[in-house]
């Protein structure tokens, strides 16, 4: 089921790279069309999985990654269509393709554990996935900012200078993505905290060792708090101590690296509370 979106994301990646190198308008339109097709196929796949298990497939890490990829693709398409800037696609698509290989290789969705239900759980997961998608965009925008910044600073106006939007636009897009991501990260963490307290209070669910491990010391939860601290500092630095431009861009990239770390290796190998 997840192979078709994966193949379409792959095709879109090739088209975005081609467009970035050649700047051919037709190739650019084809790239967007392929990405829209991939997102639609992905929507269908997620819809089918939702029908199968009775809720949006986000409970296990593989499903969560698939849904994250889908959200990121939609967020990116939104940014591309509202800003008319296609240059960022070449940086987003490799991420989409790389992450989508995991659900494509492990296509079966398991029934979610009994403990994973309720509006708080839904709010927790959906908010965090959306926050991570925003941070992914911010990280990529930050990366492009640094590349362009270096070219202008070095007085060597070349490849990126000709292809990327202005520093001001990149900085503004980055800030906006961070603000949105931070709001959803906070919401997701709060919802997760309340959910954990409630689950631990219920005798039926408190026996689950994973529920018992839902504390700040669990690697997944601990790293989520580090993320929150990094992005909170970034917002504070941008507003209060005049950090902008390259420093914020670097912080966005570092923040997203931590998000990715938490999202893939920590989820699969380290956490004792989120290994569903």
């Amino acid at each position: 089921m997840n192979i078709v979106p994966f193949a379409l994301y792959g095709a879109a990646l090739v088209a975005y790279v081609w467009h970035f190198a050649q700047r051919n308008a037709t190739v650019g339109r084809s790239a967007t069309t392929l990405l829209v097709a991939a997102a639609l196929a992905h929507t269908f796949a997620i819809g089918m999985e939702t029908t199968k298990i009775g809720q949006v497939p986000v409970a296990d890490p593989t499903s969560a990654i698939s849904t994250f990829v889908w959200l990121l693709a939609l967020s990116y398409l939104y940014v591309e269509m509202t800003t008319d800037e296609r240059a960022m696609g070449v940086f987003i698509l490799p991420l989409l393709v790389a992450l989508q290989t995991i659900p494509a290789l492990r296509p079966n969705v398991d029934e979610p554990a009994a403990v994973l239900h309720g509006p708080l759980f839904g709010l927790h997961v959906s908010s965090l996935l959306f926050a991570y998608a925003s941070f992914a965009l911010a990280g990529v925008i930050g990366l492009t900012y640094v590349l362009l910044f270096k070219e202008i600073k070095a007085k060597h106006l070349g490849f990126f200078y000709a292809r990327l939007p202005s520093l001001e636009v990149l900085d503004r897009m980055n800030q906006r993505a961070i603000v949105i991501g931070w709001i959803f990260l906070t919401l997701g963490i709060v919802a997760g905290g309340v959910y954990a307290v409630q689950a631990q209070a219920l005798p039926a669910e408190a026996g689950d060792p994973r529920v018992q491990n839902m504390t700040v010391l669990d690697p997944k939860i601990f790293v989520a708090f580090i993320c929150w601290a990094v992005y909170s500092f970034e917002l504070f630095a941008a507003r209060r101590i005049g950090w902008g431009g390259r420093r914020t861009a670097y912080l966005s990239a570092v923040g997203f690296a931590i998000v990715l770390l938490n999202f893939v290796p920590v989820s699969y190998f380290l956490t004792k509370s989120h290994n569903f």
Partner: protein
Amino acid sequence: MHLLLVGISHRTAPIDLRERVDFQTRGVGQALRGVAGLGSTREAVIVSTCNRAEIYAAADDVQRAEADLIGFIGTFGNVNHADIAPHVYKVADLDAARHLFRVAAGLDSLVVGEPQILGQVKEAHTVAAEAQTAGPVLNRLFHSSFVAGKRVRTETGLGSGAVSVSYAAVALAKKIFGNLQGRRVIVIGAGEMGKLTALHMKSQGVSHVTIVSRTMAHAARTAEAIGGATAAPWNELDAALVASDIVITATGAAAPILTKARVEAVMRQRRSRPLFIIDIALPRDVEAAAGEIEQVFLYNIDDLQATVRENLARRSNEVARAEAIVSEEVEKFGGWLRSRGAIPTVVALRQRFEAIRRAELERLDFKMSALAPEARARVDEITRLIIEKLLLTPTEQLKAIGDAERIGAYSEALTRLFALAEEAEGRNQAAASSTADDAPPRSNVEPFPRSKNR
């Protein structure tokens, strides 16, 4: 019919000769009427810019048209034939098309890739269309040239990158700040150079220009000359720097005015908002080390000139890709032009069918005399439609052949099968016996049906 180009350009003629053959000064429309009056061309378009004067024409007799057009250029510019002839280039058919496509793409311009030329080519066609000297061949030629020009602009980097220092500065500012509207510029120095740069920035939409000079009176005078600018005294320089986004320094000072420490202090107050400093003074007004400060983008005149050189080099790297696009478009146009080779055959074929139809209707006129006028009109309509339908597919097939040799073979076959040569002979005799005014103008001949629904 052949395509023909006769002209002079910056590549072949010195400026004084180009000035004399400047069609624009005396009106291109009038010149076009002059060309039409020669009688040797069927269609004409004149492309006239400060770098070129070119007459594109469609003509049956290329030699005669060529001689006439060279003569026309000489007469128009009041130049002896011997003086102008060595500077004139004459190109025919697809080479003429290639030349125009290269011109429209900016490949033949003085500054390769400059964007104005495409607009000038479009204007040239509009003027000819208004003067009714552009016909089907030149219309198609010029529209194809617009396509070639647009493709080169969007698909290659031929037109990218500023190729003058002032445009390079503006382009850089736009790459840092997005757009310049609402931005504030400060010019340090009240000299001519600073004034010109400020005027250029103002024309790009910056909201406010402040002139700072050691002599307040000079600053005030320059600010007044710019219009809408304000002057500030020297001791308010730091405050003005804090409020500005773009700094242009152009003083005659012997030592740097903006040291690294001074710029650092300004940046602290600016809370690290980006500052773009353009140092066009010689010796330099800004310490080179100031460019190391985070969020300070410092460019001096050499840096800007270097980016211009890089852009020019990059443009020349794009030439091959642009030429490939031009070749593709020439090929497409060539296909269309060759398909026109079938026109006489198609016209003859249609006339042959029409003649048979009319002859048959006349022969049966007696038998149909009993029919009501509406019924007779219907018979006429039905027979006409049958012929249309019968001819539609062969016409389209013939039109689709892009190879001149195959068109020739098909035309030959059709001519023999339907005895079209006799038809043409008959027509020629008829034409000879009638006056020239009776003959229908050629532009009215429509050999290809417009749609299948007819």
